[in-house]
């Protein structure tokens, strides 16, 4: 008997078709990947299998039970991690776990064996509120909560989005141990290294299954989507010796805790600088100090020639900033958003109008000028957000995980925009958890425990640490972290 059977399932919301005649089966104990771009219908598929939605047409069974008529049986035997963070932030680790255990009619003691391997890593934080955990820790706790009742089928909807590479590896190592217990796993992920850890993969695009096969088969067959030819970084030669960011002995302490612990580095004009580090290494805090959102405890720094201690108002005028969470106002149209941000930076109306045309032309976006931003796909929003962040021609743009949760092809397009900006002389300061993106940077630094433990070009770092690629370099360094990931 197959663990999951999906027969000709379709589902639409009003005029939008989310799933279109989808069929596949997943064998018992299999690790099955459901991959595809944002908005392909993956979440709808999970919700149908978890009995949260009824299929429009077709039929699906989980563990032999029908998702419509035998809802209660399915709900007793599946574990589900929705895409959104699914814990109670104001309850402690222990309280969350106990609550979910009781919810499924079991106790932490009874289920302890099944979660021990994972729970061991977070048990020392048992009295900490879930909201205060780092991204990787939260995902581990969510997985514990989903596993404590020993489900026979586990549904994981992009469980590692926003989690650093080391934590992601550990997370998937845990999933492998579950396989030994014959638990069927269906997971989606935007990371290719995770796709490769699935036994079979279904590629879902615009509600249709484009192909099912082993990870390598699918990744090869759709190579143009998943592994588009790497873009060549045309070294424009515009990198000058002029430093636009200079930081010396920068420290930010919260009480006795040094989030950023004495870092020094510089970035040259026109450079693409990758700022890497595990969750909780201090990246965001450092970035806040550089952008003038936060005062350093000690140390000095200059951004675009202005002192980060005293001249943060000047700095704000000369930088662009794009965070992962904030993109644009969803209830304004594309043009209205551009107009707003142009206005905020004090550009003239004529300037805004001409540059808007030029920008939309370059993005091939002209026909969506009057669309609400909320109606655009995530990848487009991010491209638009980036273009808006550099609309006022800042000398530096700060990007905080700009490509979280986006498929490889869209990320590749996003990086073309970054190169484009760099070619125009804009310095790019970017954080990312994608190690293939790290390779695209001119220079990178890797933060561990609040300190910069390595800095250099990707080639230099690979050579220095004798590792084949950036992924290994990062893992090598991040594993030396002693600070509890928080």
């Amino acid at each position: 008997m197959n663990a999951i059977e999906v027969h000709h399932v379709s589902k639409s919301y009003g005029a939008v078709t989310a799933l279109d005649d989808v069929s596949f089966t997943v064998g018992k104990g299999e690790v099955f990947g459901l991959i595809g771009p944002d908005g392909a219908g993956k979440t709808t598929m999970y919700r149908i299998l978890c009995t949260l939605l009824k299929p429009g047409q077709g039929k699906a069974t989980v563990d032999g039970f029908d998702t419509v008529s035998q809802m209660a049986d399915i709900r007793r035997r599946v574990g589900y991690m929705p895409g959104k963070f699914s814990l109670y932030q104001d309850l402690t680790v222990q309280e969350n776990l106990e609550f979910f255990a009781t919810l499924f009619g079991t106790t932490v003691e009874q289920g302890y064996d099944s979660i021990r391997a994972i729970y061991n890593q977070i048990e020392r934080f048992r009295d900490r509120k879930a909201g205060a955990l780092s991204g990787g820790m939260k995902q581990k706790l969510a997985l514990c909560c989903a596993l404590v009742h020993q489900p026979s089928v586990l549904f994981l909807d992009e469980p590692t989005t926003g989690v650093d590479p080391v934590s992601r590896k550990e997370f998937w190592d845990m999933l492998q141990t579950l396989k030994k217990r014959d638990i069927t796993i269906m997971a989606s992920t935007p990371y290719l290294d995770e796709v490769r850890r699935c036994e079979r993969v279904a590629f879902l695009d615009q509600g249709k299954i484009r192909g099912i096969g082993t990870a390598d088969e699918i990744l090869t067959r759709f190579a143009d989507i998943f592994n588009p030819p790497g873009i060549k970084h045309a070294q424009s030669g515009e990198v000058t010796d002029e430093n636009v960011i200079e930081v010396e002995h920068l420290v930010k302490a919260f009480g006795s805790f040094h989030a950023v612990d004495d870092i020094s580095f510089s970035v040259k004009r026109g450079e693409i600088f990758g700022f890497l580090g595990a969750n909780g290494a201090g990246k965001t805090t450092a970035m806040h100090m550089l952008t003038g959102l936060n005062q350093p405890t000690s140390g000095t720094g200059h951004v675009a020639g202005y002192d980060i201690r005293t001249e943060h108002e000047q700095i704000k005028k000369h930088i662009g900033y794009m965070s992962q969470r904030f993109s644009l106002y969803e209830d304004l149209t594309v043009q209205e958003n551009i107009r707003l941000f142009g206005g905020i930076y004090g550009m003239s109306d004529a300037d805004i109008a001409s540059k808007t045309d030029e920008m939309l032309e370059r993005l091939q976006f002209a026909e969506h000028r009057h669309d609400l931003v909320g109606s655009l796909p995530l990848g487009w929003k991010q491209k638009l957000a980036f273009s808006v962040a550099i609309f006022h021609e800042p000398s530096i743009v700060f990007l905080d995980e700009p490509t979280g949760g986006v498929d490889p092809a869209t990320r590749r397009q996003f990086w073309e925009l970054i190169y484009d900006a760099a070619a125009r002389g804009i310095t790019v300061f970017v954080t990312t958890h994608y190690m293939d993106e790290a390779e695209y940077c001119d220079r990178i630094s890797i933060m561990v425990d609040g300190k910069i433990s390595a800095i250099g070009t990707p080639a230099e770092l690979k050579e220095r640490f004798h590792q084949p690629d950036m992924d290994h370099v990062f893992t090598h360094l991040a594993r030396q972290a002693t600070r509890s990931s928080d």
Partner: protein
Amino acid sequence: MKQFISFIIKEARHIVRDKRTMLILFGMPIVLMLIFGFAITTDVRNVRTIVVTSSLDHLTHQAVDRLAASEYFTITATAPTPQDAERLIRSQKADQAIVFSPDFASRRGGIQFIVDGADPNMAQQWTNYATAIISGSDASPVNSKMLYNPQMKSAYNFVPAIMGMLLMLVCAMMTSISIVREKEKGTMEVLLVSPVKPLMIIIAKAVPYLVLAFVILTTILLMGRYVLDVPLQGSIVWIYLVSTIYIVLALSLGLLISNIATSQLMALLMSAMVLLVPIVMLSGMLFPVESMPRVLQWISAIVPPRYYIEAMRKLMIMGVGIGEVLREVAILTAMTVALLAVSLLKFKTRLE
């Protein structure tokens, strides 16, 4: 049962850990009681009064003395003519003038009130009070007696109204927000994909707020009794029983709102706008239902707090038995059953 209890504990933790909400929940009844009890009051007190009289005979003298002795009026001046008095009122020096005609004593009448009518309700009350006091002299033919509230204290009126308003707001708003929050955070998905019955989720969500509502109810009653000196004439048991029906009604209303609202903000706005305005305006809390236009009277007939406030006034202030409020209790019960049924039927066990 174990699931149920752990669910309630979890819910209680959410409430207790949210310090700001806790402060508002318990601060609101206390602050409202103090404001309505002491600051916003329609009681007549210290009205600045001018006496206009030409002949200070014995009877006039007596009447003026009684006015001055009462806590309601303060005689600030005497004026020779009504025109002078009017000028004083117009220049904000006084609130009202009482003009005694020269032959007041002989024909036991002939009084004119010149009143600042900017607030018509208060103006009406001042003249009523003054008339009562002046005619209260031994010889007066008119004698009025205030039942239940001899001192005419407005707290008697407000305490039941605040109960009706607060219980409704706390229960409906807090349950709807707490359910919608789980939807927003994605935890509702996990709860639904668990073997727990949806009905249990709802009841467990409601229980902590039920308890909270009783705490608030008790706070109000205690404050009313010992701070504002509002008597509790009727039986405490009945007061709590009728309140329980009302609280359950408010909880099911909150549940209904949570079915419709998709965000916490929307739930908040819906409970505030949809509930607060009719409660304050149409329940008879501030304005008597009897003096509303016919259409508004019909609308007020479906506003639940109207019946609760009415029942509470009867039970608390008049001290009647449950027999006298059967009509209100019956209507409240019917509304509760109907609302509960609708909201339970409408509760979605799936996401659609």
